[in-house]
C-alpha cells in the first residue's frame, strides 16, 4: 500500500534567496502519528506549508496515496483532506470562536449564515474532543490557550484526514497537552493521520509512532520512535550532545528589587483581569509565576512592562514608582521584558534584525551620538548578538519576517538579556524555541539570577518553572492564591490544585513568603 503522503525531492527557495528545503523526502503512513522535529529554521514549517498549499515548492513532487498532486492553495488541500494548525495563530480576532471555527465552510440556512448552528457545532466538537472553548467569545478577548484549541477545532470541523499540527503544545498547559494528546489518539483511532511538530522531545516519545528529523533544510534521519532515545534525537537535530540538566547553585537572595503592591487592572471592556496583586522580587532570585493561561499572567507582565497603566496599585524599584509613565520609563528604571506574544509586541516583522535589536536603546550612546544614530554601531551590535545568541539569518539587515519562529524569539531574548536589567520579566521565554536554544535561554536566565538580577519568570511550562524558579507564585482568576519557596518536594500535581482554584493559601501564609 502506498504511503498516505510522499513528498519527494522537495526544494524550496524563498524569493529572498533562503533555501528552506533542500531535496527533502518526507513520507507519512496512513493512521500514524508522525513527529517532525528539528532546530529553529530547519524548514519544518516550510515543508508543511508546501503540503498545505500555502507555499509553492521550487522543485519536487507530492504524492497522495501514490497519486501525484499539485496543491495550489489551501482550499485544494482542504478538499484533499489535509488540515493544518499553524505555528502562528491564523484567527480573525474580531470574530467569535464559533465564527472562526466554521470560517470558510459556514453552515447556512436559507442562504444566510446560521449562527446558531455554528455555535452548536462548535460546542459539539469541543465536547467530543475535550477541547473546552467559549463559542460566543470574541477571539481577541480569549486567552492564548483557548486560541490554540480553536485552531484545532477548525481543522476537525473541516473533517481533515491528515492533520498537521505545527507546535500545538507550545502554548498549552500540561493538562491541556494531555487533553490534546487524548484527542489526537482518538482521532488516530478513527483512522486519521497526524503530523506533529514540536520541540519537546518528551512529547515526541510520548505520542509519536515515527519521527523525522530535519536540520538546515535537509532530512537527517527517520526512524521508529520506540527505537531511539531523546538524547539520540537531540543529537541528530543539533549535531552535538545536548545537556538536559541545568546546574543551579544555591540562591544568594539579596534585597527586594521590585515591590509590587495592590495591582489591579480592568480591561477596556470592563472585565477585571488583575485583583490586588502584591509580591516582591529579590536580587538573585527567579520568581516563577505559575497558573493556567488566561488567569492574569499576561496582564501582569504587560503592566510591569509599562504597556498599560494599572487601574490601581503600584510597583516600585528602589522606592521609585515605575508604573503609569509608559514603557520607556519602566525600562530606564531597569526592567527588561520578553513579551508573551512575540508577533504582536516583540518584533517589527518588516524591520531589520539590527533595527529590532535596538528598540529600547537606540537613543543612547553608542547608538546615538550627538543626535545622530550610528549605523555602524547598530550593525556591529546586531552582529555580536546574532553570534552570541546563535540567530540564524541572512544577515543583520534581513527582515524579522523572514526568520523562523524560533529565531524570532532569539532576537527578542538577545535584546532583553543584553539590556542588563535589574528586573527581567520573561513571559514564556522558551515557547517555540528548539531544545538547543531553550537550553541556552534557561542557562541565561540562571546566569542572570546568579549575577544578582531579579527574574520574573512567567511560564505555562510547569517543568520549566520547577527547574528554574527559586520561589513560585500561583495565579488564579487574576489573584495570587499561593506562594511557595521552591523545593524538590514540590510536585506539578500539588501546584495544579492551586492553579485550578481547588486550593488556596490564607493571606498570612501568602504574606509569609512574599
Amino acid at each position, binding site marked *: 500500500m502506498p504511503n498516505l503522503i510522499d513528498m519527494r525531492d522537495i526544494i524550496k527557495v524563498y524569493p529572498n534567496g533562503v533555501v528552506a528545503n533542500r531535496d527533502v523526502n518526507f513520507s507519512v503512513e496512513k493512521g500514524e502519528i508522525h513527529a517532525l522535529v528539528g532546530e529553529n529554521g530547519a524548514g519544518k514549517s516550510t515543508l508543511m506549508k508546501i503540503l*498545505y498549499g*500555502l507555499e509553492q515548492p521550487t522543485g519536487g513532487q507530492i504524492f497522495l496515496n501514490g497519486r501525484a498532486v499539485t496543491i495550489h492553495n489551501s482550499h485544494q488541500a482542504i478538499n484533499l483532506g489535509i488540515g493544518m494548525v*499553524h505555528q502562528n*495563530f*491564523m*484567527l480573525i480576532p474580531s470574530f467569535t470562536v464559533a465564527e472562526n471555527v466554521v*470560517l470558510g465552510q*459556514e453552515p447556512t440556512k436559507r442562504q444566510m*449564515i446560521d449562527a446558531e448552528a455554528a455555535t452548536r457545532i462548535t460546542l459539539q466538537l469541543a465536547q467530543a474532543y475535550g477541547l473546552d472553548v467559549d463559542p460566543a467569545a470574541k477571539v481577541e478577548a480569549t486567552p492564548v490557550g483557548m486560541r490554540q484549541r480553536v485552531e484545532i477545532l477548525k481543522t476537525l470541523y473541516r473533517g481533515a484526514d491528515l492533520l498537521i499540527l505545527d507546535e500545538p503544545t507550545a502554548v498549552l498547559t500540561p493538562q491541556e497537552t494531555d487533553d490534546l494528546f487524548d484527542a489526537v489518539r482518538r482521532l488516530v483511532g478513527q483512522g486519521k493521520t497526524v503530523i506533529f511538530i514540536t520541540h519537546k522531545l518528551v512529547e515526541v516519545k510520548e505520542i509519536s509512532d515515527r519521527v523525522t528529523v530535519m536540520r538546515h533544510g535537509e532530512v537527517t534521519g527517520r526512524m521508529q520512535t520506540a527505537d531511539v532515545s531523546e538524547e539520540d534525537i537531540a543529537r541528530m537535530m543539533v549535531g552535538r550532545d545536548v545537556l538536559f540538566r541545568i546546574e543551579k547553585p544555591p540562591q544568594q537572595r539579596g534585597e527586594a528589587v521590585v515591590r509590587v503592591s495592590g495591582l489591579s487592572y480592568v480591561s477596556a471592556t470592563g472585565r477585571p483581569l488583575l485583583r490586588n496583586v502584591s509580591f516582591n522580587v529579590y536580587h538573585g532570585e527567579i520568581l516563577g509565576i505559575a497558573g493556567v493561561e488566561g488567569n492574569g499572567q499576561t496582564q501582569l507582565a504587560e503592566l510591569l512592562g509599562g504597556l498599560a497603566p494599572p*487601574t490601581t496599585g503600584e510597583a516600585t524599584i528602589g522606592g521609585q514608582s515605575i508604573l503609569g509613565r509608559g514603557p520607556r520609563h519602566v525600562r530606564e528604571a531597569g526592567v527588561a521584558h520578553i513579551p508573551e506574544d512575540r508577533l504582536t509586541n516583540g518584533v517589527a516583522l518588516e524591520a531589520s534584525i539590527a533595527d529590532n535589536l535596538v528598540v529600547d536603546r537606540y537613543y543612547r550612546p553608542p547608538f546615538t551620538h550627538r543626535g545622530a544614530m550610528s549605523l555602524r554601531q547598530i550593525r556591529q551590535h546586531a552582529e555580536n548578538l546574532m553570534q552570541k545568541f546563535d540567530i540564524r539569518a541572512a544577515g543583520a539587515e534581513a527582515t524579522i519576517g523572514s526568520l523562523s519562529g524560533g529565531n524570532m524569539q532569539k532576537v527578542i531574548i538577545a535584546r532583553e538579556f543584553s539590556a542588563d536589567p535589574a528586573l527581567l520579566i520573561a513571559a514564556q521565554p522558551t515557547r517555540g524555541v528548539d531544545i538547543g536554544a531553550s537550553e541556552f535561554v534557561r542557562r541565561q536566565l540562571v546566569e542572570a539570577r546568579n549575577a544578582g538580577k531579579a527574574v520574573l519568570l512567567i511560564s505555562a511550562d510547569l517543568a520549566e518553572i520547577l527547574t528554574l524558579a527559586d520561589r513560585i507564585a500561583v495565579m488564579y482568576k487574576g489573584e495570587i492564591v499561593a506562594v511557595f519557596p521552591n523545593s524538590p518536594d514540590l510536585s506539578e500535581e500539588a501546584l495544579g490544585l492551586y492553579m485550578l482554584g481547588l486550593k488556596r493559601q490564607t493571606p498570612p501564609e501568602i504574606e509569609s513568603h512574599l
Partner: protein
Amino acid sequence: MSLETVLASIFSAAFIATILRTSTPIILPAMGGLISELAGVINIALEGIMLAAAFFGVVVGALGPEWLPGLPGWIYPWLGALAGITVGLGLALIIAFFHLELGADIIMAALAINILAAGGTVFLMFSLTGDKGSTSTLASPALPTITIPLVSYIPFVGQVFNGENLSGYNMITYVAFISVGLVWVFLYRTRLGTHLRAVGENPAAAASVGINVKRVQYIALLISGVLAALGGINLSMGYLTLFQADMTAGRGFIALAAVFLGNKNPVGTLIAALIFGAAGALEAQLGTLNIPSQLITMIPPLVTIAALVIYNLRRQAQMAANARKFQEKLEADQKAV
C-alpha cells in the same frame, strides 16, 4: 436673509428632504468604500468611478435613441444606468487586476483611475458632443422618481417622504437607503460577506481555511465599483440631469471619509454620510445670511471634525467610567472582607 427665515427653512420638512437628497450621492459610494475597505483593499477611486459612471449614464441615455433606435423610450435611461454600472465595474476591475495580479500599489492604481476618469470623460464628451464642459445640450434622461401614494396629504410627513415638492425622490435615493440594509445583511449574514471581513482582517488566516483571498478582494472591489457607479448615476440622472466635467466635486473622497468617520460599519457609515449631507444642506441655508461664504463653506468640515472628536471623547469617557466602576467595586469588596 433674516435669521428667522433661515431658521424656519432649517426646521422644516423640506430640510429633511434636502438631507436625504444630498446624502444619496455620498451614501452609495460610501457603502462601496466600506466593502472594499473591510476586504483590505481600500478604494480611493470612488471619485473617478462616480465621475465615469455619471458620464456614461447620461451619454448612453441621451444618445441611445441615436445609437439604438427603435426601442421603447422608457428603456434608454435604463440603458444609460446599465452603461454607467458597467463602466464602474470595468474601472474597478482594472484596479483589481493591477493590484491583485500585477502587484500595483492599490492607492496608485486608484489615483491613476481618478486621473483616467477626469481626462477620459471630458475627452469622450468632446468627441461625442463637441462640448468640453457639460452635456447640457443633450436631452439628458432621468431615472424615474418614486412617489409614495397618500402620504402627501399628511403635512410634514408628506414632505419628508415625498420631497419638498411632493413629487417624490429619485429611485436611486431609495436604492441608497436600501443598499445600507443589503450591505449589512451581506457583511454579517452571508458567507461571502463573512469571508470578506475575514480577508480584510487577516488575509493569511482566511487563506489558511481555504478562502480564496484574491477572489474575495476582486468581488469586493467590483461591488464597490457598482455602488460608486450608482452614486455617480444618481448625480447625473437623478439629482441632476446632466453631466458636467468634474461634477463629483470631491464626493468620492467625502464618501471615503464617511467610511472612517462611521467606524467602518454600515450603520455608522450611513450616519456619517447623513452628517455630511446635513452639513451641506445647512451650508446652503446659512449661506443666505450675510456671512462670508468661505466661513460658510467651512461648516461641513467643522461639523465633521466635531463629530469625530465628540465620538472619540465619549469612547474614552466610557472606558474611564468602566475603570472607575471596577475600582469602586473593588474597594467595596475589600471593605466587606
